[in-house]
């Protein structure tokens, strides 16, 4: 047997092993399917735990579709023990205990992608050619906070990127099918602006994880949720009853699920008409200030690329195409507490 054959057999054996684990978990724990439309395609999610299915409904219920016969992607998702006995990084054997807790391990061979994210406690296999994926999460108690906020994110964005889309670190709001992207590093005011717009009647497509198509410009929703901290919640007290905070960080890590409350206000996609760069630390500008395409790229690209960390040059090029196609504006918020939601909503409507 050649090395290549051995590796293919190894990959196949491991995939079959994981699938058997999923099937066993589903027999033992139950769980159903959720079929969603993601970036215009049909994705069928199969869960081996009712709590996971319920979480998927809270996060992605707005994307639900009646199942067709042939989904573009079939995903099997469950919680279970790690099945791999070793991880090799480079030419050296290395146990995961020796790695930084935030490390991601990734192998891309024969078109298949395997990735383990230690912080999330997840392991995934994506086979784009065969249109299926496996996603194993570490066993409980409960479901880890990153999954509660963005279930299946590593797998779904890998798949979207394989299809030429940009998994972006940005929010998106709009109305009547037209939207704007809200781009900026963490803490720039994306969530505050997006939630202000929601409370003032605009539709919502995402808080900080969306998928972008360049030609024609379009933004696709993944999650109907928003990560919110205590300071933002002070600004939006009407949401307080609906925010769940992580017990270990009661002022820092809060989650707000829009699906149970405002499903009709979460949209699957918008045509994209502008990029807005909220700046929470800048004085309240009272208007949108047109900026160069380079500034938009400088704002959108680094956190998107560094968070995604794959095919960076190609992804960067696509983002450059996007910023050349649609205008970008800076919006000084004058501090989170000063943000005037009604005025922001009016300004954004003017560019739609």
């Amino acid at each position, binding site marked *: 047997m050649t090395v290549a054959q051995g590796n293919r057999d190894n990959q196949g054996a491991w995939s079959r092993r994981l699938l058997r684990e999923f099937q066993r978990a589903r027999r033992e724990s139950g769980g159903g399917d959720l079929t969603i439309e993601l970036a215009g395609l049909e994705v069928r999610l199969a869960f081996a735990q009712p709590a996971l299915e319920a979480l998927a409904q809270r996060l992605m219920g707005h994307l639900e579709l009646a199942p067709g016969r042939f989904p573009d992607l079939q995903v099997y998702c469950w919680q279970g023990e790690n*099945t*791999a006995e070793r*991880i090799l990084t*480079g030419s050296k054997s290395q146990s995961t205990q020796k790695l930084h807790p935030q*490390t*991601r391990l*990734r192998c891309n061979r024969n078109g298949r992608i395997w990735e383990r994210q230690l912080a999330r406690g997840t392991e995934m296999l994506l086979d784009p050619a065969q249109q299926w994926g496996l996603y194993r999460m570490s066993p409980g108690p409960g479901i880890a906070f990153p999954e509660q906020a963005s279930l299946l994110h590593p797998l779904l964005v890998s798949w979207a990127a394989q299809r030429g889309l940009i998994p972006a670190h940005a929010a998106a709001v709009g109305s009547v099918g037209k939207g704007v992207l809200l781009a900026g590093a963490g803490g720039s005011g994306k969530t505050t602006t997006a939630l202000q717009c929601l409370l003032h009647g605009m539709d919502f497509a995402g808080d900080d994880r969306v998928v972008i198509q360049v030609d024609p410009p379009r933004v696709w929703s993944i999650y109907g949720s928003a990560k919110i901290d205590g300071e933002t919640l002070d600004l939006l007290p009407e949401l307080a009853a609906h925010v769940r905070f992580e017990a270990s960080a009661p002022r820092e890590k809060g989650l707000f699920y829009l699906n149970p409350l405002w499903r009709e206000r979460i949209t699957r996609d918008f045509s994209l008409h502008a990029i807005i760069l909220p700046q929470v630390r800048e004085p309240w500008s009272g208007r949108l200030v047109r900026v160069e395409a380079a500034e938009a790229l400088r704002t959108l690209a680094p956190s998107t690329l560094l968070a995604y960390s794959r095919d960076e040059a190609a992804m960067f090029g696509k983002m450059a195409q996007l910023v050349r196609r649609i205008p970008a504006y800076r919006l000084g918020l004058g501090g989170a507490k000063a943000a005037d939601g009604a005025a922001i909503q009016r300004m954004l409507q003017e560019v739609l």
Partner: protein
Amino acid sequence: MNTKKTFFKPAGNHIIFEQFDTETVMINLKSGHYFSMNPSGQRIWDLLRHWPTLEEILLALGPEERAGKSGIQNEVAAFLDTLVEQGLTERVPQRPDGLPPLTRDAAADYALPQIQVFTDQKELLLLDPIHEVDEPGWPTPKED
């Protein structure tokens, strides 16, 4: 091969950049720093694919009499120092033969080359390191 000189070359493909009329946006994927370069800096960056020396860069930027001015030399040298410090450029003692020759733009105006360094995403990168695993590193299933 040329010897006993210092040549400047672009660092590896962990540097990605996009040029606009008024600015070049650049990211160093290893450090997590990103950059904004003015058109004058962009002109120097373009020259680096020839693996030039400082003197060659100065000559390529405009008239010979201007290249000899110490103020301009210092400004370009300082700019190159920043590129090296930021891991965007490497100093090397040799360059390969066969690189295309530099062309001088005798009519070009000179402006101070500038680069702005942004470090606010560095933490994100360092917190979330990626390890690409070789083919033999595909997970091996435990025995049943």
